[in-house]
């Protein structure tokens, strides 16, 4: 199979958009209260060693993609089992993000439209881009990354008069514990979800370093999340941040420059659509590659359509309502995702180091 490669810049854009994903509109890390900025920075730092694991695996086995690496390391049976677990993880995450998107649309805009309708249209576009392959997704991300950065910069500039730094004072009012809880939350969603990127990447252009890609991606992703959460909390305060489904939407709705520049919420919606498109597509790509690897097919493309349809229906029956969705995203996800996002990668790395050494000896 021809390896599909990304340039360094494309991979980083993809990663930043993936991290921004649904995290820019959902309320994450609310436990940390006014110290949320600290929680974001800490979880970004915490994510660095985890992505180093992925980068190390890439550089150990530069000619394989993630699922192939797993099968090479653990052999046909056990390796396939791990692939299956990861395929489920990517599939489930994709369905969750799709659901976030659907809830967002019907909550803020089209209340009477059945959720399935916008979700299906959205997922069909994801289907298309995944069929075209990761190179197209990379180019798309690289192009829209600029939009995302411009959006973040413009909203920051416009929000300056509304910021109230008192929301962050006093520093560490309830001690360090809530900050750690918030850190765990933000680490699990979105930073450690980058495991799905590792599954979706199949290779990079020559002379590009996977370490640089992952580290820069995490750093810029942290920066975006940091700017957005800090802005939002500085505008609406901690309590409202915790109590709303889509705090960024509420915060940006408040911006009003002399009655002339106002009703900017749509900016948040655009940012969300761009980034969650990347996130869903990446999850979809990882799932399809997983399925292809398990069933020993060389090309994943023929699986894309059925898996997309399956993902749409899964997203539909995952939750009954938005309350359940938020509960899952905030309370269950960090626990559920921990084995997938931390324990398994470490096991894979240990196996990979061992296997690489024994291969060298031969």
């Amino acid at each position, binding site marked *: 199979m021809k390896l599909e490669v990304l340039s360094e810049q494309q991979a980083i854009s993809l990663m930043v958009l993936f991290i921004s994903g649904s995290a820019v509109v959902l309320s994450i890390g609310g436990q940390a209260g006014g110290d949320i900025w600290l929680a974001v920075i800490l979880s970004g730092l915490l994510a660095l060693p985890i992505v180093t694991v992925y980068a190390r695996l890439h550089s150990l086995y530069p000619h394989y993609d993630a699922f192939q690496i797993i099968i090479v390391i653990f052999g046909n049976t056990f390796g396939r089992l791990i692939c299956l677990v990861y395929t489920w993880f990517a599939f489930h995450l994709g369905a969750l993000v799709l659901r976030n998107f659907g809830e967002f649309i019907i909550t803020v805009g089209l209340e009477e439209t*059945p959720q399935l309708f916008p979700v299906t249209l959205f997922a069909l576009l994801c289907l298309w881009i995944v069929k075209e392959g990761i190179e197209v997704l990379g180019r798309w991300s690289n192009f829209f990354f600029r939009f995302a950065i411009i959006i973040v910069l413009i909203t920051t500039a416009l929000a300056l008069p509304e910021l109230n730094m008192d929301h962050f004072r006093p520093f560490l009012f309830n001690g360090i514990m809530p900050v750690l809880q918030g850190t765990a939350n933000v680490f699990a969603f979105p930073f450690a979800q980058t495991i799905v990127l590792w599954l979706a990447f199949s290779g990079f252009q020559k002379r590009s370093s996977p370490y640089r890609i992952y580290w820069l991606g995490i750093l810029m992703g942290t920066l975006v999340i940091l700017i957005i959460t800090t802005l939002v909390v500085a505008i*609406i305060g901690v309590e409202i941040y915790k*109590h709303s489904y889509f705090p960024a939407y*509420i915060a940006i709705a408040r911006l009003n420059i002399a009655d002339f520049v106002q009703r900017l919420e749509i900016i948040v919606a655009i940012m969300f659509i761009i980034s969650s498109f990347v996130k869903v597509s990446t999850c979809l790509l990882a799932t399809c590659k997983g399925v292809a690897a398990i069933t020993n097919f060389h090309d994943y493309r023929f699986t894309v359509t059925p898996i997309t349809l399956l993902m749409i229906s899964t997203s539909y029956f995952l939750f009954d309502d938005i309350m359940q969705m938020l509960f899952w995203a905030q309370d269950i996800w960090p626990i559920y995702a921990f084995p997938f996002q931390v324990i398994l990668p470490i096991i894979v790395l240990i196996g990979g180091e061992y296997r690489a050494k024994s291969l060298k000896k031969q």
Partner: protein
Amino acid sequence: MKHLILLLIAALLLAGCWNYREIDNLAIALGLAVDKGEGDSYIVTVEIINLEGAGPESEFKPTTVQAQSDTIFGAIRRLITVTGKKLYWAHAKVVIISEEIAREGILPILDFVQRDAEIRSDVWLLVSKEETAAEILASTPLVESSISQQLSQILQHHAPEPKSIPEELWNFMQKLTAPGIAPVIATVGLVEQGEEKLTRIKGVAFFRRDKMVGWLDGKESLALSYLLNESISGLIVLRYEESGLTAQITYEVVGNKTEFQPFIKDDQITMGIVTNLQVILAEVANQKVDFSQPSVRSKLESDLAEHLEELMKRTIIKLQQYNSDAVGLGSVLRRRDPEAWKLVADDWPAVFGSLQTDIRVKPVIRASALVSKPIEMRD
């Protein structure tokens, strides 16, 4: 063939929108007034604008409609039976609440306003000083075409004459949920001018949690504005008396900054409050007052300081009587001395009630408009 299929799909997708709303099937709601009905019910009055005529001659006419129900949303939906059109709330400007409801607690009302995705969180809140809130919507708009827009204009441009503290919904909710600060809402009343009744916004209603507990008049709200660091201007008129010379002096405040510093001594919290004001002499009624003299200026400054210190003291004492910390001294304490705050947080309203304050006002006369010296009259 492929293109044809694509076209067909596009035709399917672009043909319409599920949630489409035609403008002539909407009644645009501008203002909401809530009164207490019989029993547990609410009377909801809504000012709507209606499109009349067609084409370039079409005109927007404001009118009010009323309905009664046990919940706000219920009453609003019931309005469809009157208007025949669904109300569209994204342009709502004001929510007026009657005193009776304000005293009982306004969270039940705000829940709907806050929860509904269509109403924007920057609507203005007002408490009616008249018998009902509906009366306000029935008064005559003088400059704007509807009373809600008129009220919104007045609130937006209150800075030069800050006799009240306008609060938008989000700000009210923020103060309601934040520790150590109580919310206020501007009050609106009616004044008669000839045969017409006009609205006047003056003073604020202050709250403890979501229940209104008392009123502040225009002067007291000015003092509270300075304490809250609102960016306002404001005129203060004082009588100047010095060696037989008297004059009415109008000071215009052009800059204000209040700083707080809590002191704790023997478990007794004292809140130090320093208000720095920059003022200009806007009107000096007696030309014999020679404000180019430093001694005269310092006398003018100390007069102003004395007056404002007394006014602020009075305002805080009034708030203390009702245990309503509208100044947010609790939140200052929480920021400045979190450990001390933790001890009193649970009992803050009572602690606030007996809190010692030390208020200083430091005005600086920055300028005297275009006039450097008094005009000398000659025969």
